[in-house]
């Protein structure tokens, strides 16, 4: 009985650990197939378009409004110390180091990660993945590799765009609406934001891209149980990716800065 109690108590932990292990195996398999011929550039470009180009609008909107609200909030805080001039630097640092990569990753998870899980999930339940295996082709090479590579490549690019539109949004609110001196706004920003801040943010974005695509593909790839299973896999993909992104964000940040 005590044994049963322990099993119940530790079930969530064993579940998380075994899931982590399986995702790790999928990562290894993905890495193996990435460097095996023949290379399918068509599939890769298609996924890059899906993950990257089609996420542009949502990333621009997210970046712009985040920058704008950051300017608004930091202005009201800095005004108490009469240091409104720091708004530009604050917006730029927050965007490049933290909010650019994280919010981009979360938005892409919602848009593209969920679609990856749903697509692979429905391919699983309609036996299309088995059909690939039966044709002596690796489903990981055909389905997972292009999605993971595309996300790994596109997330940093999307993050640059989010950073830029965020700073632009901050500039618009700070300088044009709240009347901060333009010269001060920009000079403080240039003084306090280094290239390291941007690079580290982009490295994080690449890791987030890997996480969201790998977790989403994993959830879709091992879907069970018809339409309901596909729905469940999609939900789990978004939740698991987002949580993993946020946790790894802390770990990466503590290692980098």
């Amino acid at each position, binding site marked *: 009985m005590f044994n049963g109690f322990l099993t119940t108590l530790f079930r969530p932990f064993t579940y998380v650990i075994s899931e982590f292990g399986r995702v790790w195996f999928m990562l290894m398999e993905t890495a193996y197939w990435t460097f095996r011929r023949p290379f399918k550039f068509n599939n890769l470009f298609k996924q890059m378009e899906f993950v990257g180009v089609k996420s542009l609008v949502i990333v621009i909107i997210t970046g712009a409004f985040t920058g704008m609200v950051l300017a608004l909030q930091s202005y009201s805080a800095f005004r108490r110390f009469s240091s409104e001039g720091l708004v530009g630097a604050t917006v730029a640092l927050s965007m490049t180091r933290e909010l650019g990569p994280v919010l981009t990753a979360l938005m892409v998870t919602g848009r593209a990660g969920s679609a990856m899980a749903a697509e692979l999930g429905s391919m699983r339940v*309609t*036996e*299309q993945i*088995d*059909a690939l*295996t*039966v*044709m*002596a*082709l690796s489903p990981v090479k055909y389905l997972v590799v292009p999605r993971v590579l595309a996300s790994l490549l596109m997330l940093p690019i999307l993050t640059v765009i989010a950073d830029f539109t965020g700073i632009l949004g901050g500039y618009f609110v700070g300088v044009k609406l709240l009347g901060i001196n333009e010269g001060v706004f920009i000079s403080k920003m240039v003084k306090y934001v280094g290239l390291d801040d941007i690079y580290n943010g982009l490295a994080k974005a690449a890791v987030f891209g890997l996480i969201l695509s790998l977790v989403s593909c994993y959830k879709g790839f091992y879907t069970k149980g018809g339409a309901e299973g596909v729905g469940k896999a999609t939900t789990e993909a978004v939740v698991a990716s987002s949580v993993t992104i946020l946790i790894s964000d802390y770990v990466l940040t503590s290692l980098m800065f």
Partner: protein
Amino acid sequence: MDDTTIRIVDLHKSFNGQVVLDGIDLEVKRGKITVIIGKSGGGKSVLMKHLIGLMKPDKGEIWIDGLDITKLNERELNRVRMKFGMLFQEAALFDSMNVFENVAFPLREHTRLPEKDIKRIVEEKLKAVSLLGFTEKLPSELSGGMKKRVGLARALALDPEVILFDEPTSALDPVISLTIEDLIKETQMHLQKTYVVISHDVAGMFRIADTVAMLYEGKIVASGTPYEIKRSSQEAVKEFLKATKIPGFAGGEL
């Protein structure tokens, strides 16, 4: 040349303690249609997934052309899989590709044929299943019976030695079922390949089978020509045939 393509020896498989295959012994003859009949949920699909290496048995051997495929790794298995084509229950067409691309897919992936040869082969295969005018359609625009015909054309594309059919007539109306059965028989007569069909549709499958094997409670309880099976004195066989109520079948009304 040995006339046995596939030999299954004492195959066992359980899922979470539930026994599904309990010592299967079966021989599949080269160039013939072997039909495995049995109840839905009785392990037919599991048996078929073992034949092509999608599942590993707990115990037992599957010999295909002198190789025990249960002992092979994924790369060696892929070499064996090249001898197989498979028609899935729901056809499993790639829904991002149209009919032509679906049938061309195995050719494009496994051969270096120029595009005009691929086009010729695809058209030939689609003609064999009477779907030549549908090359541009997407799977979502096709009926269930048409999907299965495209699935058959795709399975035939690389001229495999063995073709597996997973419930080819399930979820189809009787008329379409009949055309699919005829198509299976016609292509087999024409190509002389080994066909393995799993089905619970007794009447239809007895029309086309050379050999029928009955799967019951994880074992092959009877196997022989359709005629022999109809005359079988085995309780399980009689009961199964009786349920189909086909005139002339054991237990059915005459």
